[in-house]
């Protein structure tokens, strides 16, 4: 039986083999991301609950672990109300437009040294392009709803994402200069060799800018003016219900996981172990800690997700014009200055640029 399967597999043309394997990988990653999203809602409610001295979900299933599924089922069986004055086609298409880029960006994310769906050389550009496309879903949703609240939310979101996209782009220029490659796998490999080689150290200002811009880009507190619950009720998704709302929700959380993963890859060495190079661990039972693996990436993602929730529980919300000021007048100058500093360091061959060819 086994032999038969293997031989029929070998008989397939290589294109079909490649397609099958890729489809299989896509399913694994998509299901993985969606499950991560489901449990990060649970994680968020538990974390914020404990910060606010309450319990959080604890009724559905053991420890409330069934809560995400209960939420999904509830949203699935709710009616989707399409406002009569809305543009029906755009109204329905908008949630998809915001979800698809959030999932598609995972194509180039290396989960460990070998697993990546599409190992393309322009990975970083691809990520930048897709995260920018996500904003169209938000703008279209706000426009198609034909409500003043939604429209305000969409306008705020558009302006905000444009501003922070630039800061993010500049921060990534720094990463690009340090790694010398646009391939995400190469960027991680450039940081191998222990914590001291992580870009976090040499590009610390860029790391901060990238991370905070990431929070802003995903419309999370304290930058959640696009949904600003107490001002414009829910912003762009004020009229969405049922599955359509669930898709926006999914997109927001998928984006959070994505930004966490990207920050880990760009600045914290992706799948690399923080104990790499601790040679005294060799031969001890703890030696496995030194190897880079998917679990290190997952741990870093969890840490950044926790930071998302931590921010949300701590800070008041910025006002719209203050966000713009922060983006244009603080972050962009910081990144530009640090790129210059980095250029000078690279020219002088200091730090990680010491081994640069002449």
């Amino acid at each position: 039986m086994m032999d038969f399967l293997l031989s029929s597999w070998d008989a397939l043309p290589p294109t079909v083999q490649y397609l099958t394997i890729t489809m299989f990988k896509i399913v694994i990653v998509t299901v993985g991301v969606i499950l991560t999203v489901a449990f990060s809602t649970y994680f968020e409610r538990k974390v914020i609950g404990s910060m606010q001295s309450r319990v959080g979900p604890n009724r559905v299933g053991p420890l409330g672990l069934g809560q995400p599924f209960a939420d999904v089922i509830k949203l699935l069986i709710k009616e989707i109300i399409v406002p009569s004055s809305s543009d029906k086609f755009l109204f329905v298409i908008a949630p998809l437009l915001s979800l698809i880029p959030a999932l598609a960006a995972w194509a180039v994310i290396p989960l460990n040294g070998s697993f990546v769906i599409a190992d393309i050389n322009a990975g970083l550009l691809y990520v930048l392009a897709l995260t920018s496309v996500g904003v169209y879903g938000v703008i279209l949703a706000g426009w198609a709803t034909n409500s003043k609240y939604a429209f305000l939310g969409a306008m705020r979101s558009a302006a905000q994402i444009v501003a922070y996209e630039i800061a993010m782009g500049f921060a990534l220029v720094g990463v690009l200069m340090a790694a010398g490659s646009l391939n995400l796998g190469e960027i991680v490999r450039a940081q191998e060799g222990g914590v001291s080689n992580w870009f976090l150290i040499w590009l610390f200002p860029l790391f901060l800018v990238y991370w905070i811009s990431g929070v802003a880009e995903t419309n999370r507190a304290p930058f959640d003016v696009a949904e600003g619950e107490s001002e414009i009720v829910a912003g762009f998704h004020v009229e969405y219900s049922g599955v359509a709302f669930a898709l926006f929700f999914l997109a927001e959380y998928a984006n959070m996981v994505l930004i966490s993963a990207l920050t880990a890859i760009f600045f914290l060495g992706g799948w690399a172990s923080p104990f790499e190079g601790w040679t005294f661990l060799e031969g001890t039972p703890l030696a496995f800690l030194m190897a880079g693996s998917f679990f290190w990436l997952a741990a870093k993602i969890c840490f950044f997700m926790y930071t998302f929730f931590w921010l949300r529980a701590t800070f008041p919300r910025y006002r719209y014009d203050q966000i713009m000021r922060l983006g244009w007048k603080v972050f962009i100058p910081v990144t530009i200055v640090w790129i210059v500093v980095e250029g000078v360091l690279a020219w002088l061959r200091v730090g990680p640029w010491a081994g640069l060819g002449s």
Partner: protein
Amino acid sequence: MAEIQSYTMNFGPQHPAAHGVLRLVLEMEGEVIQKADPHIGLLHRATEKLAESKPFNQSIGYMDRLDYVSMMANEHGYVLAIEKLLGVEVPIRAQYIRVMFDEITRILNHLMWLGAHGLDIGAMTMFLYCFREREDLMDCYEAVSGTRMHATYYRPGGVYRDLPESMPKYQESKFRSKKEVDRLNEAREGSLLDFIEAFTDKFPACVDEYETLLTDNRIWKQRTVNIAVVSPERAMQLGFSGPMIRGSGIAWDLRKKQPYEVYDQMDFDIPIGVNGDCYDRYLVRVEELRQSNRIIKQCIEWLRANPGPVIADDHKLVPPSRVEMKDDMESLIHHFKLFTEGYSVPVGEAYAAVEHPKGEFGVYIVSDGANKPYRVKIRAPGFAHLSAMSEMVEGHMLADVVAVIGTQDIVFGEVDR
């Protein structure tokens, strides 16, 4: 290019930051407010008119429902006006109890305000922290009156009954383990006074905790400093009172300026602001939390040392106890008369005002000598504050409207009445 037009937006009446049923019609240019037009009356329950149709005592419960986050303070204003008309002497112990519960109410109100204001500006943890402490104070309400919100505890002539000697306790259940119940009941072993004292001991640390989250927070400051500045002159012209006028730098507090009950014997300070912006009003209210705590401590000390009657000994006004009623004919008649017809109040009119947590809460009663008021007029502080809304938000952004609604501490129960 087409000319830019301003557009109108309906803010409320169903809006998470409208604090009930405020309907604001905003005229905006982009996000900047040109004009705000508050529409009121969506929670009108005709309290004043209802009070004309029933005996004096039966309206006390309605007063609780005016500003439903500072219940006893409303009762206080109404009861004071009746006492002024009747000329009745309130026992000193009752006065201390009233002062103590007025201050408990002030803390209740300010905690609710702080939580809601924080939530409006996006600091959602504040809300839950504040409600944690409110829970204890609600238990104090429950211990003296039997209800957690609408107490109907103050009566003309005193308060309904003396402070209880024991606190209700939590009991073990499927959801509460023995250990948890013991922890919850720790402060409840003694009398109500012990419980309140335990609260006043821990409360300053709680206020510190709120302040660590907000006072020096850069985002909080950016959102409140220089927002909705009201000059002292303008604050007076607009009829502001309470923390709103004190935030503008005028030390006006009825507890000091026209002391009622035993406030003249209390040692406390009036905090005032400097710039008259949202941040100053925030600081004023937070300091008032601490000052109220001080007053409560003084009341506890006095109340421990001085037992005595808590309501006037006049059965034409105050019903006799049930024990008396059961075996004394005259008491039975008094009881029957008071609970059906009520008492008659001499002809005249009176205005009594208290320093309500939100400002000057006044009740004006005209009596024609019957057992019901001829007319009751309530001066609600929130009404005057709300009418300044347009002036305060002009030129600010949409997000600031929410901050201003918060800083005014609007509650629709009293504005609409």
